[in-house]
């Protein structure tokens, strides 16, 4: 191969490589825009009415958890150690779990083990907190925005889902996902401690 042809060959591959990265970057930009639009947010998570794909995760206590648990309805709450909204949701989750003993709540937390441990604190005493260091479980469930909640019935079918900001979201999803009679509104903290 002569000099000019070799040069043009290399230059061509360089152009192709740059164009490939540019196209990927462009798609990523539109994907990001779509993901954060109201429409994109509404399509996050598994399809309502579909069966939740089996998930395996390790809890903070080292237990291997299979989701969805057979015969048990529940809520899967996706959070992250780097998400300020998730911090605000923590007391709401604890209150909801205490007020609704018949519902299994599982928190799937993105982050490193030690960060998740620190983030969960006392929450891990009452609620199973699954560590998702590489966002594999989130990716498997199609969840990219947090905090996100999925309501699954006792047969493992997704009944409700969505981004949540407070206990009202948890109650709404639990109410839609499960039989409404089993869901009671979370009692305010002052009533719980009997003041």
């Amino acid at each position, binding site marked *: 191969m002569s000099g000019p042809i070799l040069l043009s060959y290399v230059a061509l591959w360089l152009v192709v490589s740059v164009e490939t990265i540019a196209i990927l970057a*462009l798609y*990523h*930009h539109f994907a*990001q825009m779509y993901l954060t639009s*109201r429409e994109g947010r509404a399509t996050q998570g598994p399809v309502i009415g579909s069966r939740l794909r089996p998930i395996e995760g390790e809890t903070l206590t080292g237990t291997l958890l299979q989701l969805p648990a057979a015969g048990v309805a529940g809520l899967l709450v996706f959070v992250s150690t780097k998400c300020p909204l998730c911090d605000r949701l923590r007391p709401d989750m604890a209150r909801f779990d205490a007020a609704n003993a018949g519902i299994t709540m599982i928190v799937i937390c993105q982050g490193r083990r030690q960060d998740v441990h620190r983030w969960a604190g006392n929450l891990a005493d009452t609620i199973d907190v699954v560590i998702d260091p590489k966002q594999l479980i989130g990716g498997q469930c199609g969840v990219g925005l947090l905090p996100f909640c999925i309501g699954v019935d006792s047969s493992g079918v997704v009944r409700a889902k969505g981004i949540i900001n407070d206990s009202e979201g948890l109650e709404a999803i639990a109410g839609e996902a499960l039989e409404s009679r089993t869901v009671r509104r979370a009692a305010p903290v002052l009533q719980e401690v009997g003041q």
Partner: protein
Amino acid sequence: MKTGLGWLGIQVNRRSFLERSLAATFGVLAGLSIGKAGVVMADKCTAPNGGGQCYPDNCWGYGCVNGQYANCSFYTGTWWPNACWSCSGGTCCDCACQNHYGSYYCWCFA
């Protein structure tokens, strides 16, 4: 197409190095395309009806607040409050605002 975009967004965002690299590439190329040598930062949030970023005094962190020129509040969902979400190390909120000219949507980010 929409499913593909959603999947791409989630999968790329899962890998922070890839996400940062692609965002930087887009920023540089977008900057070059409009004749700017620097990086053009792409918006991380999208408001309803394609609204842009709120006036600075209508945002307190990621929260929507009343300001000098407009009154803003969180634009919540139909069934339960879901105006805010976190993604890629930041938090976005949808705001519904009202000023002398009418109402509009915008977003706050922190």
